[in-house]
């Protein structure tokens, strides 16, 4: 079982002591997190690691997920897209009614009786209408800087019922929101199977299992199959790179989450776009690619790509940097906080630029190594789970008004 002390060699004893003292203040308090899926995507990733750690600190935390059918998740994905800026989305009243009804049904089976309840993203947002007690916080992981106003105005009355809102970036806080808002950068767990160190032979085994040649350079993008992640852009970059660096391979790694019905459709589009290209590997959890395999692939990348058009924060960038891999990425979401141009990777302005920067890194391994080391330091100092856990503990302490 994971213990907070296990992180001391990475973040230092001081950080661990601070966390323990804060946890002491709210020991025995009950907290509940609710989101839409237990696997796939950054939110599940964060909760999967933070909740057991908080429990190990003596806080009675549980993590519950929403139950819904494909129709429900199709509507909530539309909401997600609308909040992220898709102005063409509209939610008819019958779809909105179904969204509320599914939440009503879930409220009757979920245990929401807690001192602090944290609701993640729009899918379970309406659960606030069933609050019996406690303080409620809405954690929005989406880039809501330019939302579709028609859809936002349907959701905002429920957001206003919360005691606190939490966003990943300052600019995501919707204008005029009268609820207190705090910023919480997502973080990664360096000891999780997805990020822990691996032996070279383990990495080689994973690559060979999927037919990837360990002796040829590999670049890749880890992201859901989703238009916002721009998978076709990553493939276009690869094709340009290959014309300059023959022999290079591309891995496109994604996961299907139950709250993302578009995933299958976009996976199919990506496979079609790849065609018979033997140098491109499109892989997912359906191929048996789990945390360990993602870890191996990321460690095998000479360069990680992140060509996203929108990002909540970009935790796959954090993961690659932690593994000492330089990242060539767009300026979406929280990427510029992580990719410092020329220091931890390169920020790019388009396909040609991204291809050029990738070629540069493939031809100059010494530069890739320098940037990779810079990236690892940057993540160690700023984006590890101990930071995220400290933020959650402080939020809890202040919501319930406890003192040391």
């Amino acid at each position: 079982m994971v213990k907070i002390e296990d992180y001391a060699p990475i973040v230092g004893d001081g950080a661990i002591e601070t966390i323990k003292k804060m946890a002491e203040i709210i020991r025995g308090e009950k907290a509940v997190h609710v989101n839409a899926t237990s696997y796939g995507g950054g939110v599940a990733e964060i909760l999967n690691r933070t909740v057991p750690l908080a429990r190990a600190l003596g806080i009675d935390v549980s993590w519950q997920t929403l139950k819904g059918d494909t129709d429900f998740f199709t509507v909530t994905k539309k909401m997600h897209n609308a909040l992220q800026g898709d102005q063409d989305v509209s939610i008819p009243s019958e779809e909105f009614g179904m969204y509320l009804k599914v939440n009503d049904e879930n409220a009757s089976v979920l245990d929401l009786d807690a001192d602090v309840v944290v609701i993640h993203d729009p899918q379970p947002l309406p659960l606030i209408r069933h609050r019996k007690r406690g303080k409620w916080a809405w954690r929005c992981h989406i880039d809501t800087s330019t939302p579709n106003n028609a859809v936002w105005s349907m959701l905002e009355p429920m957001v206003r019922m919360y005691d606190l809102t939490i966003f990943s970036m300052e600019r995501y806080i919707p204008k005029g929101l009268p609820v207190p808002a705090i910023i919480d950068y997502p973080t990664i767990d360096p000891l999780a199977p997805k990020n822990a160190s691996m032996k070279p032979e383990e990495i080689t085994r994973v690559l060979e299992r999927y037919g990837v040649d360990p002796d040829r350079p590999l670049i890749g993008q880890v992201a859901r199959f989703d238009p916002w992640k721009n998978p076709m852009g990553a493939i276009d970059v690869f094709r340009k790179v290959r014309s300059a660096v023959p022999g290079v391979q591309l891995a496109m790694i994604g996961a299907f989450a139950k709250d993302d019905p578009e995933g299958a459709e976009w996976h199919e589009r990506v496979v079609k776009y790849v065609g018979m290209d033997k140098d491109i590997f499109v892989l997912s959890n359906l191929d048996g690619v789990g945390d360990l395999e993602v870890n191996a692939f990321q460690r095998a990348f000479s360069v990680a790509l992140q060509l996203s058009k929108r990002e909540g924060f970009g935790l796959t960038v954090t993961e690659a940097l932690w593994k000492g891999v330089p990242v060539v990425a767009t300026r979406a979401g929280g990427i510029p906080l992580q990719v410092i141009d020329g220091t931890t990777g390169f920020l790019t302005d388009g396909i040609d630029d991204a291809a050029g920067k990738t070629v540069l890194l493939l031809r100059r391994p010494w530069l890739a190594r320098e940037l990779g080391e810079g990236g690892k330091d940057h993540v160690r100092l700023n984006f590890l789970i101990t930071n995220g856990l400290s933020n959650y503990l402080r939020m809890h302490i202040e919501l319930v008004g406890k003192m040391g």
Partner: protein
Amino acid sequence: MIIMSLQKFLTKTATLEINEPLLMALELMSYGRHPYRILVTNGEGKVVGIITGRRALEVLMGVRGTGMAKKKGLRRTLEEAVRIFMDESHEIFLEDVGIEALLKFMVENSIGYTVIVDQSRRLKGIIHEVTFLERLRGKRFNASTGDFMSREAITLSSGASVRNGGRAMVEKRVRRLPIVDSEGRVTGIVTIGDILRFILSEAKAQDSLELDIEEISRMPIEAVSSKKVVAARPEEDLGEAAERMLDNEVSGMPVIDAENRILGIISRIDVLKAIVSVVGIETLKAEIDG
């Protein structure tokens, strides 16, 4: 890539130990050069967090969550260790990072400062926007302030209370509010620091055990605001605007027309970003290093 030494750019900054009370943060923010942010360190001088003026104001005005100040009283909240009020700092860099990287990071993310530590996270100093702007004194960029200001200026009417001002700053996430009359003319300005100083002085002046934030924040905003407004004109060069902010030690200022009516707001980081967009990062780096 040649990494320019950070040593000559490092600035000392106010710090607080993690077990010291919130009151101490207010004291630091209220005196001397009124730092807006204070780094929190542990007993070994390692950086563990940061507390900003806005964060302190949120706590004192009871605007976050249940509001500890409301529940436990203002005086007891002020005595509580800063550990539970600070935020994690996400702008930490090692001392061997290049100045160019810090400049790019700050400009890309509109972040006005970075914290520099050694390998074991011990504080070495900070690099902030002033570091760069000071080195550009005397330069002109053939670019007008009005083209780079934020046109969404949030203002406060002259009849508002301290509470109105404090809440507006927290909710709108701004550090200063120009005060305008009914015709939109700027008559004063109030900053988060002004309000924190006011709360601190009230806390010291009143002997009673229970300080009532509601009571003390009913005071009219004029009681804490400044009538002397440092402002820019839209046609002014970015270099002039930067120098005015440096000379007056303000981090931002309203942009006004000839009739004193507000047109927008510009901050130091807005100016730095604008200069980079006009001259390019390479030229700027050469100027700064020269």
